[in-house]
Structures are given as C-alpha cells and as structure tokens.
C-alpha cells in the first residue's frame, strides 16, 4: 500500500482534491446529490475519452492534435450510420465507428513514422484533413442516435444501493479498462513507455519504434472515436464542428501527472483531472462567477497545480 502510494502520489493527491471539491460543492449547493453526480459524469464523458486519447500518445513521447477532429468524424459517422441502419444496425454502427477511429489513428501514426516529421507538425496537418472529412460526411448538425444506446449513459446504475452511481461513469471506467489494462500489461504496452522515455535506448533494446508509434496513435484514435460516440449519444445528433476538447485534453493530461516529455504517467490521473476540471466549472456556475473571470480562474488553478507538481518532482529528485 505504501509502495503504491509512493509511486502514485500524484494520483492520490488528485483523488483527494476531487473529494475535497465534492465536499465544497455540497457546501455551496446543499441540494447537490445523485443528479449532480450524474450530470457531472455525463459532462465529463467526452473530455475523459479525449484525455485518454491524448494521454496514450503523450506517454509514447508524441502529441496528437487530431483528437477533437477525430471525435467530430466519429460523432457524425455514428449519427449518420444510426440514422441509416436503424435500431437493428446500432451495434454494427458502433463497431464500424470504433474501427474507423483506430484506422484513422493508425493513419496518423503511419504518416509520422513514414514522413519522419515531428508528431506536432504531422498531426496539425492531419487535423485539417479530419476536420474536412467530418464536414464532408455531414455539413450541419444531423443524423440520429438510437434511443436505447443513449439510455446507456443516462441515469444511475439500476441496482438497489448503487443508484447514486452514474451509468456514464461505469461506461467510462469499463471502456477505458477494457482497452488500457490489457495493453499496459502487454509487451507492446511496455514498448509505449519505452519509446516515450528514450527512443534510442528503446531501439537498442529491440523495441520496434515504428509499429509501436502506430499502435499508440491507433489506440488514441480508438479512444477519440469512443469520445465522438458519447458526443452523439449525449446530444442525439452528430456535429461536424470539433468541440473544445483538444486543449482541454492537453491540460488534463498534464494536470493528471503525464509528463509531456513522454514515458511517465498513466490514464487514471488524467481522468481524475478531467473530473476536477468539470466540477470546478459547476462550482463557478453555482457561485455565479462572471463568465469572463471563470476561464481565468480555471487557467490559473491549472497553472498553479502543475507548478506544484513540478516543484514536488524537483524535491523528490534531490531527496
């Protein structure tokens, strides 16, 4: 236990901060309860998947600027497929969208490996490609979402005693764990950390850099597709214009303890960071803080927290 705490001190601190913020929310708004948790979880869904998508490539030493654009492609594709294939075709539609996300991610990764250009340059260019693709699929908000699938992320878990637990949170945890846990424990998963930490050393230890990079981006694309799918499920339509998920994902990744230099961190920390940022927005709304001041407060808190993290890391190295 103490070993885990030492290794995951930052995650534990974030979890504590989240808990403290929940208590503060309850004090500000005594009516805050199950419905508040539920709307928080639903609001966090697209941000959480975007953040997971970003975290995977950042751990592997890259950065993926296509995250929000891929979410838009997945969002409109799922809305169009669910409209055209109907209720019976919902499951195939979901499978196609997830596969499409992975393929798009793999294309991003392959473009980086083949061109040997920096990740940030290639994914910036590809961002425009996928943004255009989303508009090509649907030039305005449209399509539909199958009602039973929408209900999957709606309300509390229908088990007595667990009704306070939002289904959206369960879906999130399940989807992330299903992909991330087996990956992290596998050889390719270790390779992700290896190439993120030191590419030359990884290469000399026999890690196939190219395929590992493509894998990282494919997993990122898969998570982004899940995020796009949740957008369609929560709104009931597909939207071709990307939402504000790219920079929010970078912020949550950094806040979550993943080093932008690669090789360090996991998915849990960034996900808790997403929850903190969403809860912070709720609190600022509850306090009716001036909306122009809200973003300043959000940004300042992020900067301060990351700075504290940096200082702690320096102290740990000295000790």
């Amino acid at each position, binding site marked *: 236990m103490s070993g885990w705490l030492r290794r995951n001190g930052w995650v534990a601190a974030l979890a504590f901060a989240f808990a403290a913020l929940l208590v*503060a929310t309850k*004090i*500000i*708004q005594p*009516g*805050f309860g199950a*419905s*508040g948790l539920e*709307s928080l979880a*639903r*609001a966090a869904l*697209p941000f959480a998947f975007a953040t997971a998508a970003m975290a995977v490539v950042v751990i592997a030493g890259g950065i993926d600027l296509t995250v929000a654009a891929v979410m838009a492609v997945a969002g409109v594709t799922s809305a169009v497929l669910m409209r055209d294939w109907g209720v019976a075709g919902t499951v195939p539609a979901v499978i196609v969208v997830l596969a499409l996300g992975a393929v798009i991610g793999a294309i991003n990764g392959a473009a980086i490996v083949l061109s040997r250009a920096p990740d940030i340059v290639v994914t910036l260019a590809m961002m425009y490609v996928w943004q255009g693709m989303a*508009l090509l699929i*649907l*030039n*305005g*908000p449209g399509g539909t979402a199958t009602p039973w699938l*929408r209900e999957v992320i709606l309300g509390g878990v229908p088990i007595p005693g667990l009704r306070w637990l939002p289904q959206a949170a369960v879906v999130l945890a399940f989807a992330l764990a299903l992909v991330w846990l087996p990956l992290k424990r596998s050889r390719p998963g270790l390779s992700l950390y290896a190439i993120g930490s030191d590419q030359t050393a990884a290469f000399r230890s026999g890690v196939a850099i190219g395929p590992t990079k493509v894998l990282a981006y494919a997993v990122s694309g898969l998570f982004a597709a899940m995020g796009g799918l949740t*957008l369609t499920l*929560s*709104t*009931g*339509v597909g*939207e*071709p*214009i*990307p*939402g*504000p998920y790219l920079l929010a994902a970078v912020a949550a990744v950094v806040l979550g303890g993943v080093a932008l230099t690669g090789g360090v961190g996991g998915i849990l920390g960034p996900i808790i960071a997403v929850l903190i940022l*969403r809860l912070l*927005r*709720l609190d600022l*709304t*509850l*306090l*009716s803080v*001036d*909306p*122009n001041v*809200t*973003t300043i407060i959000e940004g300042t808190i992020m900067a301060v927290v990351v700075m504290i993290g940096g200082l702690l890391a320096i102290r740990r190295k000295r000790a």
Partner: protein
Amino acid sequence: MGARTMRTFMQGVAGAALLAGLAGAAMAEGYTIGISNTVQGNGWREEMVCAMKAQALSSGLVDSLNIAHRNTDAAGQLEDIRNLIQAGVDAIVVNPSSADAINSAIAEATAAGIVVVAVDQAVSEASAYNISNDQEEYAYLGASWLFQQMGGEGPVVYMRGAAGAGADNDRDTGFQRALAENPGIRVAQEVFTGWQQDQGKQQMLDILASGIPVAGVWTSGIDNVIVDAFIESDVPLVPIVGADNAGFVGQLASVEGFVGAAVSNPGSIGGAGMTLALRILEGQVPEGQTLYVTPALWENVTEEGRAVIAAAQNPNLDPEWPVSVAIADWTTYSLDEIIACKGPGE
C-alpha cells in the same frame, strides 16, 4: 470558505441594490435567471448577453443571474444547462448551439419546473419557448434585394457564416430560395467566413486579387471589413448586403457611391427572451411556443431608406454590435443601460 462569504456578500449587495431600486414598489419576486451562450467574443453575441443583463436589471424582478457564457459545443451547452439546473435557477434563457442537440437537458430543466426560453434559434423540444429572428427570411430578404440591384444577372459572391451552424443552414435555405427565383444570377464564389472578421476580409481580398468578375456580395454578418477590402484593393464597389452591425450601417451612410443594404438581426433578441421568461414566471403564458421577430431591410438607395439608416446611427456603439439595440414591446432598458452591460447585483 472565502468564495462563499463573497457570494453571500454579493447577494447582500444585490438585494440592497434591488430594494433601493424598488423603493415603494411591491415586494420583489427575486428570481434567479440562468443564461447559456456558446459563442464568446463575437459582437452580436456580446450584445445579446448585455441585452439579457440590462433587461433583467430593468425589469426589477430578478435578483441574480447565473451566466454560462463561453466558447463550446452542444455537449458543453448540455453541461452548462445541467449546471444551471443544479444551481436552482427559476428560468433559463439560452441561445441554443443547435435545434435538436440540447433537447435532453432542456427537457430535464422543464421537468424540474424551470422555464426555458430559446432565443435567436428555435429548439425542437416542445416544453421550451422560443423567440427568435427568422433566419431564413433574413437571407431571403437581403438576397432578393441584392439580385434586384444586380439587374437579375451576374456573378455574386456568397459569404456564409460557420459551416455546420444551424443559423447558417437556415440562411442558406433562404439564400437558395432567392437564387432559384433569379435564374440569371450565378454564385461566383462561396466561402465560409466562420463569422470571423479577419478571415472574411482576407477571403474578400483574395477574391478581388484573383480578378474574377464580381457584381454583388451577400455576406452573413461579416460586412464592414468586406467594404474595407474593396476600398483597400482599389476596386469599384459593387452592391453589398450585410447585417445591421454599427460599422456597416455607418458605411451605408458615409461611403461615397456605395450601394448596399443592412438586414436587421437584432442581438437585443436576448432582452426579448429575458422578458418572455419573466412574463411566463409571472403567469403570462403566450399562446404559441414560438414567437418570431421579423427582419427589416435598410437600403441606402431610396430617400426613405437613407432616413432609416441615419436614425439608426449611434456613435457610442461598438462597430461589431448590431444597431438595433432594442425591440419595441419587448425591451425596456435604455441605450446607456445596454452599453453599460450590467445585470442585477453588478
């Protein structure tokens, strides 16, 4: 909790201000109204939010506003509306990012007894009230006038708003209707300005530099910079139809030899939405769920038109703000109050 103390203090100030304002009047109802808007830093939207705040203050019925005003998508607006539900507001005035995408949160709000009024664009959720500018008619009115000025033939530059936005799609429907009625007109260039001034101006400069013939321009809300682009490129002006933004209306009055028209799309619809929400809270429920404010066209070709434009001028307004800062029967604030942009308790 410092923030909590601050809030209590602010509420105290708000309450005191309200009491002072209503000295002698009946006891204040003291409503809390939520506002949700998803485009920040755009003159039209800023005027809309200021109209909401000024109207809330002017009504004397509101003691605090919870404002969610940021750049986000429909999913972000769902979050904002749910946060407003958590805050326990009495009514929500919302500029919806799309007609269908935020229905689930609106339904949750009305189920919780909150009055929801959508302004600018209508929403398809049946429990919400809508008060909006008729965007299809907006485009049809301006485009028809433009095509008539062009003599029913020639190349037109069609400058749209943001690709995929609901209002842009509605305007496109109106524009295409006018185009179908004028078979001699062809679209020489179709671009999306994204409702961004710099982007729209650059696009016009590029079109003029390319030398393709242009006989008229229809532009969706990005207008004064388009006139600037003609002047800077030293190209003779062609008829241009824009919106009633203060800068463009000023050009209609002052630029030598410029023929054009402004179609009104009042940002003050925000104030009308606030009034509608308060009327419903006070028990005056309208007959229909949807009310439209019809656009007006102000041209500088006829004497009458020039008189309307002269009357609408206001040097105190930001050039990106629409000049139609008030809507008769719906808004009660003064010009100074909307420019001050203060809500109850500020």
